[in-house]
């Protein structure tokens, strides 16, 4: 079956009334889970897994997949409205999305997030449909040294995540890196910086830290203004993106999609990493990067496109090789196995209705999500009309419930509150949270891939410079660090010469 007839067949499977219902239910649940902070797609899919035992395999997989990419749509909503990332993949959206909302442009931000998601999700699907096999072979080229070099590249982009002082951004990144080392050593299981606290053995969770640094800190910040009585009233100007918004966001969407498309294929990469890289790239290529962090629409369009493209393309290694590139798809793999279906090279041959049905349902799902999300925008925007006195305590309540829901653990609430206070203090003194979060997310991957690489080479550092992909990424990141310094020195030199 070639790609076109396969797709037509897939659409016919996905458009069967019962399957259409599953697409809708999955997308709806996904949006809901995305909107609620804390509980993420992994927890939701695991809990729903037993329910799907009774369903036909096509319906079950369609619904569970719908939850996964639906979450990527919904996660941006609270990021934009109240600075609380609904999922880790939506942390970056807070940076400009929330600023847009403060300027009364929540509608355009939500709109561009939804359209960007649709565009990227669909583009990712086209890639999945046409180039699944060659792409998955490329993904296999990435071993520990390549990942290490790639993450190093991520680190070299870290200062692009802040709009203020670069040195302060570096300080925050270092703190994030140190914090990511807390917990049991991934290789020897020895305690590091746990102070004997059992709850720290697994390390500090990303979600409570992100919710604390962004959402809770914002609430604390507003308590200050609330008591002083000077509440700025947000005037809501428009509900949909204007022509100018589109023009500005157009290429950001394309670039975000490209980044997400590629990083989604890599096992261990995925949507979270994609959002950070996409944002940093966007700022790097922008004509006036100082707009970022102050409500630039590209800062919403690019990460939101990236996480949806990554969600689509992460199905590539999953469906063609049976490799789940992230935890969500690992749970989904379990669901496939329960129904006796083995994802892998033989899936298309043995179960065409599953493969093409899933692909077809994802095309439909992306449309469903846009239809589901667009009418909701005016409703969401109304949230901002709620008086701050009521809104912010509510936000805090949602964060508390959300943090608890991750592991049913009160400790996560404590972590969130501590980072809320830290975030509030940092903000007062001009330190930003984003570089900390990025370093915190990258830290563990950085470490294990470094140590794995050295295990592979028996301790020789040459492994990072003798493999073409790793070498390329190393040179590129070195360039990213050296070039601005060179430029700066050049300017100074000229200055003294004159």
């Amino acid at each position: 079956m070639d790609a076109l007839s396969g797709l037509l067949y897939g659409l016919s499977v996905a458009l069967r009334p019962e399957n259409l219902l599953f697409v809708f239910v999955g997308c709806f649940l996904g949006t809901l889970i995305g909107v609620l902070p804390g509980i993420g797609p992994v927890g939701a899919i695991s809990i729903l897994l037993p329910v799907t035992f009774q369903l036909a395999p096509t319906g079950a997989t369609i619904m569970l997949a719908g939850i996964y990419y639906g979450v990527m749509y919904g996660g941006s909503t609270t990021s934009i409205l109240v600075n609380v990332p609904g999922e880790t993949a939506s942390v970056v959206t807070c940076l400009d999305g929330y600023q847009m909302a403060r300027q009364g442009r929540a509608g355009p931000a939500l709109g561009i997030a939804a359209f960007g998601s649709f565009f990227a999700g669909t583009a990712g699907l086209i890639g999945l449909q046409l180039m699944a096999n060659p792409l998955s072979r490329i993904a296999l080229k990435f071993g520990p040294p390549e990942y290490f070099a790639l993450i190093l590249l991520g680190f070299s982009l870290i200062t692009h995540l802040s709009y203020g002082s670069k040195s302060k951004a570096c300080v925050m990144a270092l703190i994030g890196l140190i914090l990511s080392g807390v917990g049991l050593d991934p290789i020897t299981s020895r305690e590091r910086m746990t102070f004997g606290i059992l709850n720290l053995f697994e390390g500090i969770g990303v979600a409570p830290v992100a919710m604390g640094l962004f959402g809770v800190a914002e609430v604390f910040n507003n308590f200050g203004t609330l008591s002083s009585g000077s509440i700025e009233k947000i005037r809501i100007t428009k509900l949909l993106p204007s022509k100018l918004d589109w023009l500005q966001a157009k290429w950001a969407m394309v670039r975000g999609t490209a980044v997400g498309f590629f990083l989604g294929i890599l096992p261990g990469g995925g949507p979270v990493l994609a959002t950070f890289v996409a944002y940093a790239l966007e700022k790097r290529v922008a004509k006036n990067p100082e707009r970022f962090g102050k409500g630039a629409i590209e800062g919403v369009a690019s990460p939101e496109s990236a996480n949806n493209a990554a969600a689509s393309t992460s199905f590539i290694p999953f469906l063609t090789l049976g490799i789940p590139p992230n935890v969500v798809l690992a749970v989904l793999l379990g669901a496939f196995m329960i129904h006796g279906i083995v994802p892998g090279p033989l899936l298309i041959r043995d179960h065409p209705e599953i493969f093409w049905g899933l692909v077809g349902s994802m095309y439909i799902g992306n449309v469903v999500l846009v239809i589901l999300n667009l009418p909701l925008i005016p409703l969401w925007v109304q949230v901002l009309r709620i008086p701050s006195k009521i809104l912010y305590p509510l936000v805090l309540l949602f964060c508390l419930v959300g943090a608890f829901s991750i592991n049913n653990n009160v400790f996560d609430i404590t972590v969130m509150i501590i980072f809320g206070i830290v975030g509030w203090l940092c903000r007062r003194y001009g330190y930003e949270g984003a570089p900390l979060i990025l370093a915190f997310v990258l830290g563990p991957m950085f470490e294990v891939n470094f140590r794995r690489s050295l295990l592979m080479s028996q301790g020789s550092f040459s492994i990072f410079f003798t493999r073409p992909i790793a070498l390329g990424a190393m040179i590129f990141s070195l360039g990213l660090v050296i070039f601005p310094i060179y430029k700066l020195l050049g300017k100074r030199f000229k200055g003294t010469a004159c």
Partner: protein
Amino acid sequence: MKVEKCRKRFGVLLATAVCVAVLLMVGTVSAASWPDKSKILTMYVASGAGGGSDMAGRMIASVLEKELGMKVVVINKGGGGSQIGVTEFLSKSGTDGYTVLCANTPVTISPYMDPARKATYHLGKDIQLAVGYGFSPCAVAVKKGGKFKSLKDLVEAAKANPGKIKGTASGPMVQNDLSMVLLNKAAGVEIARMYFDQQGEQRAALLGGHVDAEFNNDFELIGGNKSGEIETLAIFDKTPAVTLPGVKTAESMGYNVHMAAAYGLGFKTGTPQEILDVVEAAVIRASKKAEMVESFQKIGLGVKVMTGKEYRAYWTGIENVVGDVVKGMAVKK
């Protein structure tokens, strides 16, 4: 006077006896009436949602729900290689039999066998095992059509290139890591142990040629084996597994290595034996029905019932293995 004193004493004695009898009766009554179907059985799974341990837990939860006729609620409490979950189970659980732990060798064992982990519990002291229900042997797989055609090939290569042959496991001191340690010991080689906590990363590293062998549970290998991406060389069990047809045991090739994940149920010490017996009987009853076997088959988990006693004996054996490995590690450092 004397008689009066005697009577008083007798009275006290009688009263005590009555009290003790009543207490005993209450005790037996509560155990005999277990399970109270209006109550909820809380099941602790000491790992996050998703993954083998969680799946095994959720499967047995639905079995218990049917057999005992009561609601079973699963609580996932991951972290610290089961240490966080088990610690919380022991602090929250009473001895009334309404809180049960999904135990899992060797994962539940490793934390308390390693003194550096400072676990506050020890199985023999704190947990009574009721029954073992699921069993998944470890196995070793390589990329199909690659350098290695047999376990002997792999071992020979490891002998010829000490430290250069790399094997994957999902984390330190879990069953697949231990199977690698035991193979190293049995064959006198040093296959480098590399950890990938996500199953996908493990398989990608193998297929991409970045590592040489994947050590894993049988249910993680079924898919790749079926689709022909990987080839399972040997299974580390006494008998071949139905999940991996055609794969011989390592023992039959001269490497005496046995390692598996064995899933079971445990209660806090002090729980009446009668309750444990009810649970044991319920699982044994269910295991004879096609429904349980079929549902377990779907996730590739073999049903293997061990009575509480057998499971305890098996558990002690694994404790010794883990203990030896921990000691070996300590000596090395």
